[in-house]
């Protein structure tokens, strides 16, 4: 039997309509799970102290891997021995997080036997996070997981577990095969994921369209975002049905009674003003369209992305540490994404080489680009500068030139100058 702690504060969190993690964990504790009981106990203490009670880090792991495990020890182990060690294992999730219950149970069984029985489904990067194991259990857990066909994800200065949106599996907007790209990158770069050898972490996220449901643009060093370069497909009959109020606006996202006002909701909100509705016909000047998805989002039955699909690649998103948060910057406006994605992978490897060579310790690629310049980066990955890469050209006049760009070079002789210009 697990020793239950008094948790008056946490008990307040069993109330209210939203599901309660306390209720859930408490049940497990009551069923005899000591880690669960002690976790609640220690958490209650944190609520009282208004300070967390975990020690700093702890270098643990599984042999052969440089990451995948985050070490964690309690700083009040005497009070809560069940969580004295509380390491997490990051288990690489299946792309877009579909689960066959049969397969998932493989993991749950191992975790019930050897771990705390608690998980994060999922970590912010995308892994299944097995939350709380003792050091001695790490190797056995790993061995059993791999036996069943599961592997660890990334941590440390390595490639992190790639993640993607649901994509073609259940979304009509998907312009690329997000899951296959995610899987392919994961498999191709197993070594980069498991043996940290870079200046810092590196993340891929793959979104099927510019709606960015896996937040790739904000949270991955390299975002692969589906797009198209031909015309938006229009079904004029469906347009008429929207206008006539036969189809609810926005797929019902604004409520079942939301009738589409084609002018107010579509034409006027198109950010480029490239849509026209005349004589009952919707038309789009696709040359001016920036594929912002708005019209497609609000009229999903009438409008569809084009057929010549591929991806936009944005590089450099990251959280604030050290130099401030960044979003991804558009580096490749359009690239075809077809299995085995060689052209894209070539780009990736060039990018990594440059980062590896130039990056300082704990410098994300986005920060390196800031430090060395966007121009230096695109040169390193063999791209040509195009205006699509920037929102606007520079406004400061501090332009660098290389010596070979300037007639006559940089070397000059002051005496030549003085021949024409007295001191």
């Amino acid at each position, binding site marked *: 039997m697990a020793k239950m702690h008094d948790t008056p504060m946490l008990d307040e969190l069993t109330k209210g309509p939203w599901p309660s993690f306390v209720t*859930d964990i408490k049940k497990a504790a009551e069923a005899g799970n000591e880690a669960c009981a002690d976790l609640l106990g220690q958490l209650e203490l944190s609520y009282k102290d208004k300070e967390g009670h975990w020690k700093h880090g702890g270098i643990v792991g599984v042999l052969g891997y440089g990451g995948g495990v985050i070490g964690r020890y309690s700083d009040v182990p005497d009070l809560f021995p069940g969580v004295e060690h509380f390491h997490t294992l990051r288990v690489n999730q299946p792309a877009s997080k579909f689960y066959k219950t049969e397969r998932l149970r493989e993991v749950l069984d191992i975790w019930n036997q050897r771990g705390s029985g608690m998980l994060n489904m*999922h970590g912010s990067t995308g892994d299944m996070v097995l939350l709380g194991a003792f050091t001695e259990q790490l190797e056995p857990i790993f061995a059993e997981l791999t036996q069943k066909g599961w592997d660890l994800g990334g941590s440390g200065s390595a490639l992190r577990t790639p993640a993607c949106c649901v994509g073609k599996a259940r979304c009509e907007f998907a312009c690329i095969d997000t899951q296959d790209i995610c899987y392919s990158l994961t498999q191709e770069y197993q070594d980069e994921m498991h043996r940290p050898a870079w200046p810092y972490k590196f993340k891929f996220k793959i979104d099927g369209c510019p709606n960015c449901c896996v937040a790739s643009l904000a949270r991955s060093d390299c975002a692969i975002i589906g797009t198209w370069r031909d015309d938006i497909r229009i079904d004029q009959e469906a347009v008429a049905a929207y206008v006539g109020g036969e189809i609810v606006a926005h797929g019902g996202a604004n409520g079942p009674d939301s009738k589409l006002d084609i002018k107010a909701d579509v034409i006027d909100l198109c950010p480029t003003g490239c849509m026209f509705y005349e004589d009952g016909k919707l038309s789009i000047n696709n040359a001016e369209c920036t594929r912002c998805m*708005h019209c497609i989002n609000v009229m999903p039955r009438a409008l569809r992305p084009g057929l010549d699909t591929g991806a936009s690649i944005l590089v450099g998103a990251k959280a604030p540490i050290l130099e401030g948060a960044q979003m991804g910057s558009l580096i490749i406006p359009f690239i075809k994404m077809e299995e085995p994605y060689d052209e894209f992978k070539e780009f990736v490897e060039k990018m990594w080489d440059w980062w590896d060579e130039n990056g300082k310790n704990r410098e994300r690629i986005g920060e390196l680009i800031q430090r060395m310049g966007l121009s230096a980066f695109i040169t390193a990955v063999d791209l040509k500068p195009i205006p699509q890469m920037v929102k606007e050209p520079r406004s400061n006049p501090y332009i660098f030139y290389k010596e070979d760009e300037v007639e006559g070079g940089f070397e000059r002789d002051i005496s030549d100058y003085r021949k024409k210009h007295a001191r």
Partner: protein
Amino acid sequence: MAEFQANKITDIGPPKYDEMWPQVIKDNYGKWLYHDILEPGVLVHVSETGAKVWSLRCGATRLMTTMFLEQICKLADEYCGGFFRFTTRNNVEFIVSDESKLEPLKKALAANGALPLGGTGAGITNIVHTQGWVHCHTPAIDASGVVKATMDELFEYFGSHKLPAQVRISLACCLNMCGAVHCSDISILGVHRKPPVIEHSHLDKMCEIPTTIAACPTAAIKPSKIDDYKSVVVNADRCMFCGNCYTMCPAMPLADADGDGIALWVGGKVSNAKSMPMFSKLAVPFIPNEPPRWPTTVQTIKKIVEVYAGDAMKYERVGEWAQRIGWEKFFEKTGIEFSHHHIDDYRFAATTWRTSTQFKW
């Protein structure tokens, strides 16, 4: 050892995605035509093959036990042929291909009680969050508890479509920002406000001094000898409590009951829909930690949501709204106080100043 290594299975990667798909997904992969949200939490996707799938999205605690996962598996076995998925925001989705199972599944979910339907459309979905006091070593706040308290209060918006647009709330328990809080409609961020307290007697043993010094973005850390110990000192005037020194050096903890608390940010977005992605901007610099239910934080968020709900135009995200009405109006309408802390003083600060006579009173 070498033997063990040799037998070891490594680098196999995750199971392949299509193993995890129900048949209907396999059959209709890439063939979806359109979708409808039938009611909050219930989506139907229609394929060009004529097939339909109903997805029931349920709010879930990200932090869950194997016991609870087993409950989910059981429901999936019974109603969905043994398959289900998680969304990118930690909701659970049951995907039904047989319409006759739809209503029974809904009933079963209602009976379960811990899997409320919702999170779709112009409402509030699950809060993306991080570890908090449940696991991490650097948090300024708890994560799961704050999320629970907030979602309880905003629950009506989880199960309805009555906002102008979707509102995405995220939480990160320290400036490392493991959630996408830098680009969320509303972000809850754990912040420290005291410089690290330094364990001079152990610092040199536990940390590399040069790396520790280099870790500080503001160069506030200098090497120093204290009582014969090789250690460091922090110039408190230059410290902005980012915690990066602590990440590199365990002898410099920041956590403090009085110093730590919550900052609220608003108006970020990730999607490229309509407007370009935006960073979240500071709304409230500091709210003390108020466990177990963080009432000030929760009420402030509710106020922001309500003002937005009443004032924004249809399809307008929080950031689009604030930008249209002007940030001066955002502060006026929400009643949030504007302070020195709202004025940027970091690297791109000058780009946020108002270089125009255009403003509202």
